[in-house]
């Protein structure tokens, strides 16, 4: 029976509706996330495969998470004390300009 179950589980199924619904819920009740597109640096044209593998490289992703944390903490510590709403508004504006 478990072999039949494994076979059924292995069949491809689209979970598009799940992914769409999850994205909607995450916007409201989940931990916010951002998506970025990083291009291969021109100086590294000969390492295309290695660059693309970074997407699934746990070590790289962990380093990136640490970088985001350190970067934001440092940036917030440099900013003068002011109401958070104003601060986030300005941050958005500066992001847009980038």
């Amino acid at each position, binding site marked *: 029976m478990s072999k039949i179950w494994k076979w059924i589980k292995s*069949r491809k*199924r689209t*979970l598009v509706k*799940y992914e769409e*619904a*999850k994205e909607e819920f995450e916007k*409201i*009740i*989940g*931990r916010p996330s951002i998506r970025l597109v990083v291009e291969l640096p021109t100086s590294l044209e000969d390492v295309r495969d290695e660059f693309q593998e970074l997407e699934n490289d746990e070590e790289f992703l962990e380093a990136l998470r640490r970088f985001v944390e350190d970067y934001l903490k440092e940036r917030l510590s440099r900013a003068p004390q002011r109401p958070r709403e104003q601060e986030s508004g300005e941050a958005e504006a500066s992001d847009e300009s980038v």
Partner: protein
Amino acid sequence: MTSESMIFVIIYLFTLLSAALEMVPISVAALLGAFLTVWFGLSYGVFTYEEATGFIDMKILGLLIGTMIVFEVAYRSGIFRLMALYAIKLSGGDSRLLFIFVCLTSAAVSMFLSDSTALLMIAAAATTISKFMDQDPAPYVVSAAIMVNLGGTSTLIGSVSNMIIGVNAELSFTEFITYLAPCEFALWALTMATLYFNYRHVLGEKKAVPTYSPWESVEDKSLFNKSALLLVLFLGLFMIHDKLNLSPEAVALGCAVLALSLSNLDPSDIFRSLDWETIFFLSGFSIIVKGLEGTGLLAQLSQGFLAVSGNNPPLATAIMLWMSGLASSVVSNIAVALTFTPMIQEIQGLNTTALWSALVLGTNLGGAATPMSGVVVVMAMNTLKREGTTVSFSEFTKIGSLTTIIQLGFSTIYLIARFGLVS
């Protein structure tokens, strides 16, 4: 059994097997079976070409497609997401309350949406909030699958098998509710209690949920208001369709046209979102069953059923309930409803309303006994896998079969009491 009958039985069984094991997509299995049925049926002169063209019941298809369109528009308006968001907010981060609200919302939402759409939406909400609260999503998603399977048992539009049975038995929307709603709500309570006792030790501690306004999540307020009004009209018309001399499919298709006209959504986008797999499976399998019916085999099975039950109403009802329930736990409940419907139509001298009600309950309740019982459970398992959590076959079967046996046991007592079968 004649050689002609044998061929139709082989086609029928092969289709069931290939659909149950997903050797090919269920729609392909049914369409292949339908093609072979028509081919052999015409070759052996079991039916004529003119007869074969009427094998697909357009009333059921109209009801199914109309209902799907109305609820797809309502789904896009965010009504059901709003329900889920309110359920989470009302729990206040208490995992026990959250569990109960997830169960209730799953059953309520699946009264309207197709089981797979309802499950995917609730699973998305449950995995998101459980991740936020650092909890295991498995108890929520497994319970949601079981409750989604249960929800909508007592309404004509609650599941495809209900539509098949309702149209063939000529049961109106209100008759359906009158016969089955008390049983369904009792089953909700019983099933939730069973699930809660099973999972109460693994539900995590209370944790604050994010502050949010569910209403703010509705992006298109105009579409939301139109959809809400349309749902009220849809349900209102279903409540009185027999008094207005309107057939259920006329109500469904009329409201579908209204939904498409008022929503300003791209109709082709809505049509793409319909569950064509189910529509084609239903169409194909209807042809296969008609082929089987043409050989007189189902009439013989019907006589066999009467002989086994000894014309004893409580026994006949219990056999119908458990037989359809157990069959639906192995194969598609649409196939079970299509097969048993002509059998009940052949029966005379017994309380057929009780038998129809037993078939409704059996075909609905059997769908979440094991992970292989229905597409809803397979989808629940897949969403958990996507989130890095696995629930083993035996783990699910333990809780799924327990809730199914409790549901079928209670339904047996309900049907006997409701229809006064013991004099």
